């Protein structure tokens, strides 16, 4: 018995949290994942089928396409998924998969067939001694020490509100909205286009010279670049835009008027090619649709564009009346886009406005904010190293006796 977790007992488990943007992997009982790598990968040739990892991605290759194993948060391409796991086991963790139990996160709406196949892959291909599949919302709740919570996960592809009661997801309360990181990136791209700013990705640049703010950049293009695919180019441009977003975007604490926005101090950002510009009101205007999709002039139109507070409130209203108060007072934030400063404050304001004064609303923002991006992984790390959890693993023996359907019985 040892470990950093109370009532913990480490058994050397490996935890995976595979998101649409990033894959997080590491050992249970630790407080941060060892590996945090992009989910996207480059297709290769016959020798190396996929090039994985930040470094591999920054190296332009002829005709290599950017692909990724997930669709709607669920594993779709198994070959790519295995390539990713191989990479993590050999390059990031340097361990033999047969010696470590595996805890893996899944989206709350994961399909049974995919769950079965995941289970099969882990036991057949990776020969793990034990395996467990857990909903990422439940793990995010565990990470903040709760078993009942409303988890608002705003990652890259979509925003989801998931009610968790006593450690189980209430499936009927799941609400989704496409307003998330990728949506903001698209807004930002449009904005830059309007401003006639060309985003030059790093792989094209050989050297640059410093220039004054707003002046045309002075940079030298790399020679002999291979003919890269358009998916590669776009991916690299998105990387720059993401960087820009993380630097400048911020959420206003209430629906802001133009006057408010003009009062805001501008932030400067330097692009890879040396061009640098100030960002003022758009720092707040771009994320505003997260909370007010109707009031804003939307550039991209999609399905049900529910604002964050509507995602939360409609999710809660679909749950039993008896659990609603505890959900309202335990709103947990997960996912990278919630890291934008002002996000939790604004969500609190909007949610409070949506409820009556007798309902206590609390957006939980405990601990280190940067942990939020890892929260599902941290939850997995805690759960897999609890002494009481050890009886819940699907063992290899159970898999061999019952087949892949065992995952339905053992992992709720």
């Amino acid at each position, binding site marked *: *018995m*040892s470990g950093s977790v109370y*009532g913990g*007992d*480490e*058994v*050397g488990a490996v935890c995976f949290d595979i998101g649409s943007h990033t894959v997080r992997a590491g050992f249970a009982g630790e407080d941060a994942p060892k590996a945090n790598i992009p989910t996207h990968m480059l297709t290769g040739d016959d020798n190396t089928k996929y090039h994985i990892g930040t470094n591999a991605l920054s190296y332009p290759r002829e005709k290599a396409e950017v692909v990724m194993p997930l669709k709607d948060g669920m594993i779709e391409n198994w070959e790519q998924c295995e390539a990713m796991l191989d990479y993590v086991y050999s390059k990031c963790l340097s361990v033999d998969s047969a010696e470590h*139990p595996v805890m893996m996160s899944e989206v709350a709406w994961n399909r049974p067939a995919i769950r079965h196949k995941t289970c099969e892959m882990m036991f057949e291909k990776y020969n793990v*001694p*034990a395996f467990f599949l857990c909903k990422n919302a439940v793990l995010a709740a565990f990470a903040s020490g709760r078993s009942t919570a409303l988890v608002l996960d705003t990652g890259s592809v979509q925003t989801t509100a998931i009610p968790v*009661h*006593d450690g*189980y997801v*209430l*499936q*009927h*309360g799941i609400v989704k909205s496409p307003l998330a990181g990728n949506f903001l990136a698209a807004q930002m791209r449009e904005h830059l286009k309007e401003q006639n700013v060309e985003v030059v990705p790093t792989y094209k640049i050989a050297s640059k010279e410093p220039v004054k703010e707003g002046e045309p950049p002075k940079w030298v293009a790399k020679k002999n670049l291979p003919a890269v695919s358009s998916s590669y180019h776009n991916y690299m441009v998105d990387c720059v835009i993401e960087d820009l977003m993380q630097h400048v975007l911020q959420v206003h604490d209430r629906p802001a008027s133009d006057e408010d926005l003009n009062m805001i101090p501008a932030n400067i950002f330097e692009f890879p090619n040396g061009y640098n510009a100030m960002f003022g009101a758009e720092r707040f205007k771009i994320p505003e649709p997260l909370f007010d999709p109707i009031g804003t002039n939307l550039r991209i139109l999609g399905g049900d564009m529910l604002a964050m507070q509507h995602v939360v409130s409609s999710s809660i209203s679909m*749950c*039993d*009346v*008896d*659990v*609603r108060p505890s959900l309202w007072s335990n709103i947990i934030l997960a996912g990278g886009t919630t890291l934008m400063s002002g996000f939790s404050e604004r969500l609190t304001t909007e949610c409070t*406005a949506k409820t*009556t*004064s*007798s*309902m206590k609303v609390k957006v939980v923002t405990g601990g280190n904010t940067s942990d939020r991006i890892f929260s599902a992984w941290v939850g997995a790390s805690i759960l897999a190293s609890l*002494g*009481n959890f*050890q*009886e819940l*693993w699907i*063992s*290899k*023996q*159970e898999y061999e006796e019952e087949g892949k359907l065992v995952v339905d*019985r053992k992992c*709720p």
Partner: protein
Amino acid sequence: MTVWFQVGRRPFSGPHFEQARLPEVRSWQWKPFKNSARNDNLSLLHWKRCDDTSTDYPFAKYSVKREILKYTDEQYNGVLQQPGWTRANTDHLIDLANRFDLRFIVMQDRWDKQTHGARTVEDLKDRYYSIQYRLDKLRDSESEKPKRPLYDADHERLRKEQLEKLYSRTREEVEEEEYLIEELRKIEIRRKEREKKQQDLQRLIKAADQLTETGSSNKKKKSTANKKKEEETRSWRILDKPLNAGVSLRSAKTKQALQVGLKKSKLVEQILTQLQVGVSPMPTEDITVQFNELRNDILFLLELKIAQETLQFDIQALKHRKETLGDQAAAGTDEAENDDDMFADTDIMGLNLDEALVTAGLTSSCSRKRRAASEIEKVTALLKKQRKNSKG
């Protein structure tokens, strides 16, 4: 440093730090273990102290599973059938209960609607607990009472309905309700105040009546009912109480304190001096009685005066309100003004009671209010005039 913490010693032990020695570090081993809470042979590895000889997994004892109902075919066919529930429905319920440890909210969430039809949490609880009840009864048929009471599904449904209504109120509705409650409270307070005032007034009036009554008729012929009344009305009077037991001088009776505040007793003394009676007359039997009667009467007069002041203030306030509410009630105001004139003459027996009261600070607040009210009246009149001018 970390080593120190690991071995459970403080890092510094004062001046003896140099001598502090590391105790022998316990050795741990990365060892395989089996967990008796599992029903397979899964063997995982964990850290175990070498001197730890326990064989079972230390967390196995915390594994507890709730007992979920079981029934035989015979029991089911005998007592458990219920309209609206097939055997398949019931088996599904028990299966979910087993999987989710009787968490009904989760069970309802995972309930297979397609095959078994939609059910609410209350439906599931109702069915589950009624099975429990019937099985209990079957088992305890010899003993008189079944142990557990029956689950009241209708009550629960009603409760949730109410809760749903409570939560679905809009913010405006809640605010309006809070506003109304607050208003009701204010009205309640005002009503109580008015009632109290009325009672006080009633008492004074009764006392005044009696005073005239007793003046004309003989005191000793009073009926018991009258006496009782008198006691009531005299509750604010003071001097009929007996002195302390034992021997005392007769003059002590004239010195007996009034049962009122210091201010009022001072005032009474002041008026006694004004009347040239003085505060300590010659205490013959007769004078003592008369003196105390006089003191009572003065006190009574003061009470009346204060009551009148308050009423007058109320009239002013009401008049003011009436004015602000509309000009149409001009005639009414005139009348009220006449009433006011009637009150204006407050010199009684040549005594300047008004002044006396003000100096004593008893009615200052009242008259100040009155003055403020008249100021307000003046200002509003001015404003009205101005408005008229600007219109014209």
